[in-house]
């Protein structure tokens, strides 16, 4: 996100081509085991000899404090690499747009377009000449402003000084606004060719009605042309206030240096309190919407309201979703739709817990002439899952998976900065990760089933499809795979 375009979303044709020239496939779904646990362990000596001790993981010593201006700081020292990451998370996402969709994103995008004495090119030259990466971005809940820099003082100090000016003294130059507005408008035109985007926008409209999550963070072709400098300055003064930010720091710094950096950043921001919490959305009407689009595949999106980040059911729902369609692979949905029937390249489900209730969503693409049958198949799979709940074996397998992947979630400085940002922004306890992992391990089949049914119903889906209207074919019969059995990974 070094460059404007990355977040404007105009991913250029040729770049996309370059990126996909390495054709990547998601991990194919795990088949149900045709053998019992012990047989699998017999055939794989590495599996049989795995230690039963619990896994080592990086110990995170999270330090936290508040700055004089009221900003919450979370810090992890990591001296192995001579670099650091500074990430500011403001409650300044597009849910704060009010009746001007796109205001939050434009304000965020304009921060590095001008400061007293420096235009956009001079700012970019300043960061890049130090080898520092400045980045910014806007989502529904939050706006991010980040700096990654080398930690030696001759690089760190000038990079931080420039970062402080960008945060604290943006001049919002008119000519930049015109340019960025035009880029956004070009992006909207480009989106007209993207059925997945069209479907997603429509889905959020249906799901959220009048709630501030209802529109895309980019804004709309109607709203963006009218946004002016004054509106951005007002938004900046409220939403970029020191009381409305969480500062995450990870890297080659000691506590004293970290405190100095946090104090400098915090004092450069406008003074002010946190913005009030968002309202909760009303329950949407469960309807089917069709978008006619001349593609070969049909995009299918299913959604209903999910949970907030603070919901006590989060762990149970996370585990429940892992079994249904989370993480992509080896799930019920992937198994039935891709592996047994070859209907799709991938199908995924997930809760997105947010400040207000975020969506629970299932998405896939499939050949247009079998899309209606696929839609019914997915609906039935969810219905069965909610009625029956997971099996004991599914529960155990997925508990082990979550425990096994835990060490991977904090392997890099970038991973840790993500975790700190999230803990700080959603006001979670510093022990959140450990608590969450422990809670997962205690869950029973009944608890997971109950939690799923408290929040989801097979009849409540808002469904959006984007694709061509064509004659429908029946689905192929599923391959006759044996049913799932427990597998041979030793318990931890």
């Amino acid at each position, binding site marked *: 996100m070094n460059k404007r375009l990355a977040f404007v979303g105009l991913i250029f044709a040729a*770049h996309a081509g370059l990126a996909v020239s390495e054709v990547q496939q998601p991990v194919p779904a795990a088949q149900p085991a045709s053998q019992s646990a012990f047989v699998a362990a017999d055939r794989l000596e590495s599996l049989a000899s795995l230690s039963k001790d619990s896994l080592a993981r990086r110990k995170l010593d999270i330090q936290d404090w508040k700055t004089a201006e009221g900003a919450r700081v979370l810090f992890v020292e990591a001296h192995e690499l001579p670099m650091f990451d500074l990430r500011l998370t403001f409650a300044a996402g597009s849910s704060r747009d009010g009746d001007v969709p796109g205001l939050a994103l434009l304000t965020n995008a304009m921060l590095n377009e001008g400061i007293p004495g420096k235009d956009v090119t001079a700012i970019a030259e300043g960061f890049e000449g130090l080898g520092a990466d400045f980045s910014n971005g806007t989502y529904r809940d939050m706006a991010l402003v980040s700096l990654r820099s080398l930690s030696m003082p001759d690089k760190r100090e000038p990079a931080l000084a420039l970062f402080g000016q960008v945060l604290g003294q943006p001049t919002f130059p008119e000519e930049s606004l015109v340019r960025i507005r035009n880029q956004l408008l070009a992006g909207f035109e480009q989106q007209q060719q993207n059925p997945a985007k069209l479907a997603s926008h429509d889905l959020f409209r249906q799901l959220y009605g009048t709630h501030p999550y209802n529109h895309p963070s980019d804004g709309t072709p109607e709203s963006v042309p009218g946004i002016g400098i004054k509106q951005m300055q007002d938004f900046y003064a409220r939403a970029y206030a020191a009381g409305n930010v969480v500062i995450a720091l990870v890297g080659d710094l000691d506590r004293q240096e970290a405190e100095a950096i946090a104090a400098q950043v915090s004092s450069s921001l406008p003074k002010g309190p946190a913005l009030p919490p968002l309202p909760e959305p009303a329950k949407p009407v469960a309807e089917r919407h069709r978008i006619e689009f001349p593609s070969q595949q049909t995009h299918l999106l299913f959604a209903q309201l999910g949970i907030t980040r603070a919901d006590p059911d989060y762990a149970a729902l996370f585990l429940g979703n892992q079994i249904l369609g989370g*993480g992509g692979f080896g799930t019920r949905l992937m198994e039935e739709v891709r592996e047994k029937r070859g209907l799709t390249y991938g199908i995924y489900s997930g809760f997105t817990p947010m400040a207000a209730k975020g969506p629970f969503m299932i998405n896939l693409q499939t050949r247009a002439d079998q899309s209606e049958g696929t839609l019914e198949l997915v609906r039935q799979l969810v219905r069965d899952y909610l009625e029956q709940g997971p099996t004991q074996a599914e529960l155990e397998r997925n508990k082990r998976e979550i425990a*096994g992947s835990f060490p991977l979630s904090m392997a890099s400085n970038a991973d840790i900065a993500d975790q700190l940002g999230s803990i700080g922004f959603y006001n979670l306890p510093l022990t959140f990760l450990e608590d969450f992992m422990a809670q997962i391990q205690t869950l029973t089949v009944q608890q997971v089933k109950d939690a799923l049914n408290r929040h989801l119903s097979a009849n409540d889906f808002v469904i959006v499809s984007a694709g061509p209207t064509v004659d429908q074919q029946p689905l192929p019969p599923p391959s006759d795979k044996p049913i799932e059995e427990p597998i041979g990974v030793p318990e931890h």
Partner: protein
Amino acid sequence: MIRPIRYSVALLLTAICLPGQAATNVEQRTHEFTLDNGLKVVVREDHRAPVVVSQLWYKVGSSFETSGLTGLSHMLEHMMFKGSKKLGPGEASRILRELGAEENAFTGADFTAYYQVLARDRLPVAFELEADRMTGLSLPPDEFKREHEVVTEERRLRTDDRPSALAFERFESLAYPSSGYRNPTIGWPSDLQRMTIDDARTWYQSWYAPNNATLVVVGDVQLADVRNLAEHYFGPLQRRTIPVAKQPLELNEAGERRLTLHVRTQLPSLLMAFNVPSLATVKDAHQANALRLLSALLDGGYSARLSTNLERGEELVSQVSAWYDAYTRGDTLFVIGASPNVQKNHTLAEVEAGIWRELDALRQKPPTQQELERVRAQVIAGLVYERDSITQQASSIGRMETVGLSWRLMDQELQALEAVTPEDIQAAANTFFTRSRMTLAHVLPLESKPNE
């Protein structure tokens, strides 16, 4: 999306002394050894967290495919998850998932690679699974049939329904007149349709062998342990005779090629490419390094020339980018892509002229030392940032080894880039930015297509 500057520095990440400070504050060692059966193993220690990545890179990809068989390397990649001697279809993935591992595979023009990221104690499982499918793949016909459907959906998803990808596929088929780099990795639709399981079996038997692969391990491991595990699991596999794979070489000056494409897009765009050597094919590495710096001068950040002059200065384009991939086994391309700023009523012809103004400026005048220093500062910092991810480190090592360059070359990269002078850059611009090396595509909305 890969940013060009990141791309150009992606492979610069081994232990070198940076001005003023070492690249890491702790020692990070890299080792290599080769098993008797020819499997090369590169081990890089990174003890920051108790995790490890294992990547197995095969020297085969879509540029190896002959006419009628495009897409075969990628199809075989899918079939590698469908069972081997010790394992049923999908079973390896099921086991890895339960261990909490990340796993995946990717196919490119020069390589097919498989990887697992997992807690360090579980590395033996990754080795056992990879070793089993290196020579003992099952290739069951019913699985092939279903997976063929999945790949067909993948082509629809990634190429046919994505106008920009479709345009780039057509563009590359013209930009590479003589080498296998013209093949789309996913395969031409006609080739996908007639692909058989026997094609996949033959491909597997030809290319999958320990002596045609590189195993890269990066993470919280010790050399002795990895060596023992590699010997134990991969050691018993038999060496095979591998077909001779010649470097994909291109005509230097095939003549100016122009292409007009109408795709389902709202906005027009332009693709421009020049046939150039890679680090593996160039006679004097200096020239390839000059090309890398040229791509950084043009598009190595928001302050680079294309953004500053064309996007913000003249407001001629709404987006523009340039990149050069030096790490290919054969001759490669220097590519520039742009979309006109239609809000300002600019046309593709004006964009084309604007890009040529920038290229001509580089041909006529060397960059200033100051500008070059800024570009190099990003490269130096990139060396450090790359090390934050074990996966990126492993990918860089694997890619380099697979295209015929040694990972040890990385040790000299910074010096190699430092040795490039402003005059070298000007000379490279003059050699390579010529009409006779150029392919140009105008990508236009369907609505603008004339009736024929």
